[in-house]
């Protein structure tokens, strides 16, 4: 049984021109100790889907889901209050902007202590020891001093480490990292990523890594989901995805990687932008930007075909394999 299983999750937001479908029928399954990467451009609904799992979306959002289970517990049947308690306990999340994700008015220590107190309890001394231990394992030098520091006194990398320490406070079984390195310096990015992977292994957590960096995916994940305009378009184990991408969108993303581009030429890009609320095509959502699109693609939306090892939403897959039909 998987640690997290999500079936047919959709999220819509009310706008002045009706509902905007941010996430459309996505499925997820993460086993304990697995790393799942979700990739896609900005606006593809990666973060929104994960926030829906954490119940962090504003009450105006319309969330529908056939199944939402974490560690065997049915979240859909649970009152909001009880669900909140799982946050930070069973399932934790870190965010894109570490600097603004910490409360500027409280010390880092106070904010970590809060998470420990609410999930684990214990005496003041025990909690302090745990907090210092956490700061140490996320690689913050001089934890005693950093415990008393305010967020504005720390760098972005340090803040993200503190956020990770906070997320680990109650030994979560699943950690969702929403573009954890996007806002950081390139040198720090690698360190944070390395730290996340190390902790994922030592703690035996499941890890969902939301990113738009294919390089990060190649180095870390076992399974990769590619998301486009709120839909999942492809899922494969990382090796297969990089070597035999089936969806033209995946292939285009990979082609845009500098290390894969032919030397001395312009870097290939994907023309156009992700469709918004008003310009959603009738056929395949990627069809206006797809270099392989044919008549059928513009007329009819392909369904998501799910097979054990790979999922695909495309009429004319690339690198066709025997399973495609």
């Amino acid at each position, binding site marked *: 049984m998987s640690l997290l299983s999500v079936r047919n999750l959709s999220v819509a937001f009310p706008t002045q021109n009706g509902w905007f479908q941010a996430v459309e029928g996505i499925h997820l399954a993460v086993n304990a100790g697995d790393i799942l990467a979700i990739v896609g451009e900005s606006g593809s609904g990666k973060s929104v889907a994960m*926030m829906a799992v*954490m119940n*962090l979306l504003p009450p105006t959002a319309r969330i529908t889901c056939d199944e939402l289970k974490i560690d065997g517990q049915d979240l859909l049947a649970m009152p909001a*209050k009880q669900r*909140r*308690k*799982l*946050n*930070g*306990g069973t399932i*934790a*999340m870190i*965010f894109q*902007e570490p600097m*603004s*994700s*910490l*409360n*500027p*008015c*409280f010390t880092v220590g106070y904010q970590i202590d*809060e*998470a420990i107190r*609410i*999930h684990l309890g214990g005496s003041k001394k025990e909690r302090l020891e745990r907090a210092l231990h956490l700061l140490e394992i996320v690689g913050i030098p001089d934890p005693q001093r950093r415990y008393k520091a*305010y967020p*504005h*006194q720390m760098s972005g990398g340090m803040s993200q480490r503190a*956020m990770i320490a*906070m997320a680990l*406070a109650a030994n979560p079984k699943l950690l969702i990292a929403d573009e954890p390195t996007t806002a950081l310096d390139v040198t720090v990015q690698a360190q944070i990523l390395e730290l996340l992977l190390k902790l994922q292994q030592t703690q035996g957590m499941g890890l969902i890594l939301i990113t738009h960096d294919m390089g990060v995916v190649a180095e870390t994940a076992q399974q990769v989901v590619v998301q486009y305009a709120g839909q999942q378009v492809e899922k494969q184990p990382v090796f297969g995805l990089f070597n035999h991408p089936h969806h033209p969108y995946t292939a285009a993303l990979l082609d845009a990687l500098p290390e894969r581009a032919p030397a001395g030429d312009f870097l290939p890009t994907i023309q156009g932008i992700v469709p918004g609320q008003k310009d959603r095509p009738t056929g395949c959502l990627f069809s206006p930007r797809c270099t392989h699109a044919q008549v059928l693609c513009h007329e009819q939306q392909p369904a998501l075909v799910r097979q054990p090892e790979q999922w695909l939403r495309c009429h004319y897959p690339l690198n066709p394999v025997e399973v495609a039909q």
Partner: protein
Amino acid sequence: MFKFILSKITLLIPTFLGITLAAFLFVRLLPGDPVTILSGERGISDERRAEMIAQFGLDKPVLVQYLNYLKNLVQGDFGQSISTHRPVVEEFFERLPATMELAFFAILIAVLVGVPAGIIAAVKRGRWPDHVLMGSALTGYSMPIFWWGLLLIMLFSTTLGWTPVSGRLDIINYYFEPVTGFMTVDAWLSGQEGAVTSALHHLILPSVVLSTIPMAVIARQTRSAMLEVLGEDYIRTAYAKGLPTWRVIGIHALRNAMIIVVTVIGLEVGTLLAGAVLTESIFSWPGVGKWMIDAISHRDYPAVQGGLLFISMLVMLVNLIVDLMYGWINPRVRDGK
């Protein structure tokens, strides 16, 4: 820290000079003069009139009068009241405790009601509690304070008979010498049974009237500060951490919103002292506000000037305290220097 306070105080000097000039000119712009009012309806002879004008120094050019006034101020002499012949300082500080007591209770009520109202309105944004609270706040803010005071007196004092119409104490049943000038404190010090209750009983209606406008402003500002803060990333973090809603709103959001709210409270203290002038007149409250009104109607130049100066100094002092409180509330300011 000391340097910080010193730099703030240095800034106050030009402000203070500006206020002396404004106060000095404004009272002289009023039609009439103290001598005409002192001489009453039957009037006095021209010789006597000239003599009195010279006595108050009003025969000299305005600029000379102003420079003389400044010279005396520097020596700590705020002048004598024309109508009572007593030093302005003495008269002002005799009445200040009554005003401070009223202002203190008013700001207490304004904060205790306004801040929670603002929080509730922000959390229930767009739903009926928000509309009810913000509608009431707008009504309270727009209402002329003297009219509101009279309405409350009509309802609670005249019709229902729950509160006294005016004054600070039931003087038929209680008497004690002022010690601090704060009636509630003096009543408590006197040890007379029921005196404190009587003092509070007299205080309640004027405080409520005086608190109305600051309460409305505080409620509206708290709401907007909370709305801004509730959209911040760290609020999402707090929810993701599994904190209960009351903790996220009451601790994580409120602490940040307070940075703005404290500024507003500080500014409202100024409004409060201005409002006290009207409130004190309506309730015959023997404070500086009522004293100022009397001084103005007597064209008592030194008293009006002195009163304005002291009140401005109080407002400046409150703002200095607010500045100092920033450091305590907002850790980012603490390291700023």
